[in-house]
């Protein structure tokens, strides 16, 4: 069934190296398509639907009563989901004038977005924010972009074409029961438009006063009467930002991206989607470290090559209004040559889902999946030995098997709904993982509802915790002892377990009028077995040539427990037909119980840094004569001070963005706007513990011209 012979397709050649080194590389793209088609031919699928369009089930008379005025910008999904969900629409993205996914996420209540430098961000919700925020799962069209190397997301590599995004769904809190390990504190689901909705030519140019240039172009059409396609390209050149502790900047980044998507409707009930994307670029970065032979710290900067590509196929079939199935396969490759390490990751994933509703209204959704990852690292040899990143084994291959089942049972004539489900996964390191959740929602009436949830989620250990041997000569470390410098020697943990979160959530939503919507969520999370660095024996003296220094040995272990709790409020108010306001406030507390590591090591490696309070207010205004004015203000509390080395802390900050847009006719949009206006030189985040340096976020003024047929 599974092909072993070499095919000549492009993807095959990408994977050829992997296939040679690993007899376990079992799936090729062509093979998967074959598998998928074969399954389609051989199997008579039963039926069930959970994503149906409600207009299809209306009668002619009901259809006549449907109004074309949108009463509320709040989708039914946001109201009926028993989880803290927020949906960013394409209109929100366009009107707010953001030019990156991280900036779009700033408007989501309870989501912490900190820009580290021009191409790096720390994004998380409910705690643990760092460049490698390891408890947040991010997916683009069903493809996970979470890196198993550091358990984080390389946001610079996700420079997608925002015009083609349909919506971004953000769920704060655990999503492990459906999405599996690592969806501990939140899930960000980015969905792009159906190719049928991007017909004709489109293009945009954005320029700002700091020499950022973003160009994009796309074209969509019909290949046949049933298959829509689009092809697109995007070029981004992000200007560098000034470094915090030095002159000049190091973080300019550029990236070229091309992609396609086709959507076919076959025999009315089958839908087939193919999509792919390839990108190549460079992301500037800088690292600062101590060397034993020098009194001053060293700084090395580099434009790190970043490239990758992915191909995805998805087949969904609806056989009745009661049942639906989908089969999805994808291949993904990313490659980065960073200052500290080169990393090459290949992923092959296959996922099946099937849902149906019984006569009693019970909806069952189940699925099964398999993911293969192959991660290869190469240490940079230019760095001195005392400052090195080595992963042993250099190549790690993992198989992840997963299955889930979820039942949704309405009761009290649909006023309440109970959702119970679990995901079961098997990975090569911690073996079986269970992630059950129990959720309930109760609608008091059309206006008020309350929901509650209890969940268990896990984060499986990442490669840096399993395989990394690090020598860190960092300036952010504790004071020198006996006049000697201290270096950290980090070694991987043995028999590491997954981090476990138990989460308790309570939510309340009210919509007293069509024009006003208020959403509140409170949570308490308890974490067991958080992975941290545990001192492994005493500090000892080491000599290399003429230099002597102290070494602090640290091993990764499940040495930490912790709790977080907080509150997230958001409101959406249509003040007038031409004016809409959305606002958010969140409060977060964190307590850790650590078995030894210092507070600074904790915050650097396992705890992240989080503002206690966030506040946001976004205004969307329609003006006469085809103008729109959109403005947003964001506030974040100061980040905790580490009090070590020359750490200066990060103060509280206010950020103000605006965008004025003019729409002459249906096809053109001219936008001018500013980001972070009124303030400049704002540090949003600190240097990370591995020495990657932060920059200061500047004010920016931009203009953008876009065309859509």
């Amino acid at each position, binding site marked *: 069934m599974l092909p072993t012979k070499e095919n000549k397709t492009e993807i095959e050649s990408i994977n050829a190296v992997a296939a040679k080194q690993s007899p376990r590389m079992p799936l090729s793209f062509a093979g998967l398509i074959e598998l998928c088609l074969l399954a389609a031919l051989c199997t008579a699928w039963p039926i069930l639907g959970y994503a149906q369009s409600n207009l*299809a*089930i209306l009668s002619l008379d009901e259809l006549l009563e449907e109004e*074309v005025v949108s009463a509320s910008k709040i989708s039914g999904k946001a109201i009926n989901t028993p989880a803290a969900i927020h949906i960013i629409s394409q209109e929100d993205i366009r009107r707010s004038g953001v030019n990156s996914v991280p900036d779009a996420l700033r408007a989501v209540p309870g989501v912490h977005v900190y820009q580290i430098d021009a191409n790096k961000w720390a994004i998380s919700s409910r705690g643990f924010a760092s460049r490698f925020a390891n408890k947040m799962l991010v997916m683009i069209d069903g493809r996970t972009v979470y890196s198993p190397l550091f358990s984080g997301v390389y946001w610079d590599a996700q420079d997608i074409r925002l015009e083609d995004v349909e919506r971004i769904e953000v769920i704060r809190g655990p999503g492990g029961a459906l999405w599996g390990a690592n969806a501990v504190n939140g899930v960000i689901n980015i969905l792009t438009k*159906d190719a*049928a909705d991007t017909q004709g030519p489109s293009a945009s140019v954005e320029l700002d006063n700091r020499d950022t240039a973003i160009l994009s172009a796309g074209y969509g059409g019909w290949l046949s009467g049933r298959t829509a396609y689009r092809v697109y390209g995007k070029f981004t050149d992000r200007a560098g930002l000034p470094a915090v502790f030095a002159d000049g900047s190091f973080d300019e980044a550029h990236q070229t991206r091309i992609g396609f998507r086709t959507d076919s409707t076959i025999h*009315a009930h089958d*839908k087939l989607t193919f999509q792919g994307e390839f990108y190549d670029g460079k992301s500037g970065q800088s690292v600062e470290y101590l060397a034993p032979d020098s009194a001053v710290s060293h700084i090395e900067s580099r434009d790190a090559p970043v490239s990758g590509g992915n191909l995805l196929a998805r087949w969904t079939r609806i056989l009745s209004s009661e049942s639906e199935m989908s089969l999805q396969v994808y291949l993904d490759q990313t490659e980065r040559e960073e200052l500290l390490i080169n990393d090459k990751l290949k992923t092959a994933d296959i996922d099946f889902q099937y849902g149906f509703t019984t006569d009693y209204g019970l909806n069952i959704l189940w699925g099964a999946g398999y993911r293969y990852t192959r991660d290869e690292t190469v240490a940079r040899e230019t760095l001195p030995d005392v400052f090195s990143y080595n992963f042993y084994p250099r190549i790690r291959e993992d198989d992840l098997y997963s299955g889930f089942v979820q039942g949704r049972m309405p009761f009290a004539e649909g006023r309440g709904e109970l959702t119970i489900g679990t995901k079961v996964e098997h990975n090569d390191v911690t073996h079986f993982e269970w992630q059950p959740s129990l959720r309930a929602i109760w609608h008091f009436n059309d206006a008020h509802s309350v929901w509650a949830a209890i969940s268990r989620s896990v984060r499986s250990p990442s490669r840096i915790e399993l395989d990394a041997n690090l020598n860190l000569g960092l300036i952010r470390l504790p004071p020198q002892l006996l006049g000697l410098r201290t270096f950290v020697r980090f070694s991987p943990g043995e028999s590491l377990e997954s981090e476990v979160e138990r989460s308790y959530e309570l939510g309340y939503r009210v919509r007293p009028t069509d024009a006003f919507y208020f959403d509140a969520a409170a949570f308490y999370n308890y974490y067991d077995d958080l992975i941290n660095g545990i001192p492994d024996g005493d500090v000892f003296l080491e000599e290399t040539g003429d230099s002597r220094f102290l070494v602090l040995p640290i091993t990764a272990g499940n040495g930490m427990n912790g709790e977080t709790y907080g509150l997230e409020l958001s409101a959406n108010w249509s003040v007038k037909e031409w004016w809409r306001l959305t606002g958010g406030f969140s409060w977060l507390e964190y307590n850790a119980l650590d078995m030894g590591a210092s507070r600074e090591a904790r915050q650097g490696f396992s705890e992240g840094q989080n503002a206690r309070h966030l506040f946001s207010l976004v205004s969307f205004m329609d003006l006469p004569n085809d103008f729109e004015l959109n403005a947003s203000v964001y506030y974040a509390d100061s980040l905790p001070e580490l009090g070590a080395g020359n750490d200066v802390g990060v103060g509280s900050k206010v950020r103000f963005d605006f965008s*004025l847009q003019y729409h002459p006719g249906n096809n053109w949009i001219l936008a001018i706007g500013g980001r972070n206006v009124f303030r400049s030189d704002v540090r949003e985040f600190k240097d990370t513990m591995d020495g990657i340096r932060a920059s200061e976020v500047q004010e920016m003024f931009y203009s953008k011209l876009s065309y859509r047929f």
Partner: protein
Amino acid sequence: MQSAFFNRAFILFLAGCVLSLASAACFAQVDEDRVRAIQSAFLLQFSNYVTWPEASFSDEDAALVIGILGRDPFGSVLDNTARTFTSSKRRLEIRRYKNLDDLGQVHILFVSPFLEFDKKALAAAVGASPVLLVGNAPGFLESGSVNFILRDKKVRFDINRSKYQRAGLRVSAKLLSVANRVVE
């Protein structure tokens, strides 16, 4: 200072916006996506209220074809609604035609409002063949049988009886009774 200049310009600009707001009229908030979604559902519903001659289907199992002529205003919403539209007697198929030359076997043909077509050419291409011509443009009833309009924030349609009769179609009394206007 560059930023000071920008700040001042920005404040002026904000003030201008507030002034213009004071004179702002109310904006009609028709949700175009919603209009397209409802029109899609109507197109599918028409298949249940119109009778085509048997000869227009090659056999019992042949699909009823809904075609879009010209630039498709519906996008994925028509296909997605059709996928879950289970009340139709026949299998439904959706096809797109760039221009009149591409036209094939079709039962309901939606003529895109974006298409600048020659009325005579359309009449010649469709002729007296059993096709329900649906449009969404002022004056469309001169060429076709059904024309969508907006009335009281709802999607309605006018019907031209002589057009569908010439095409050899029968339209149920139910559909005629809910039409906004029936012309001869």
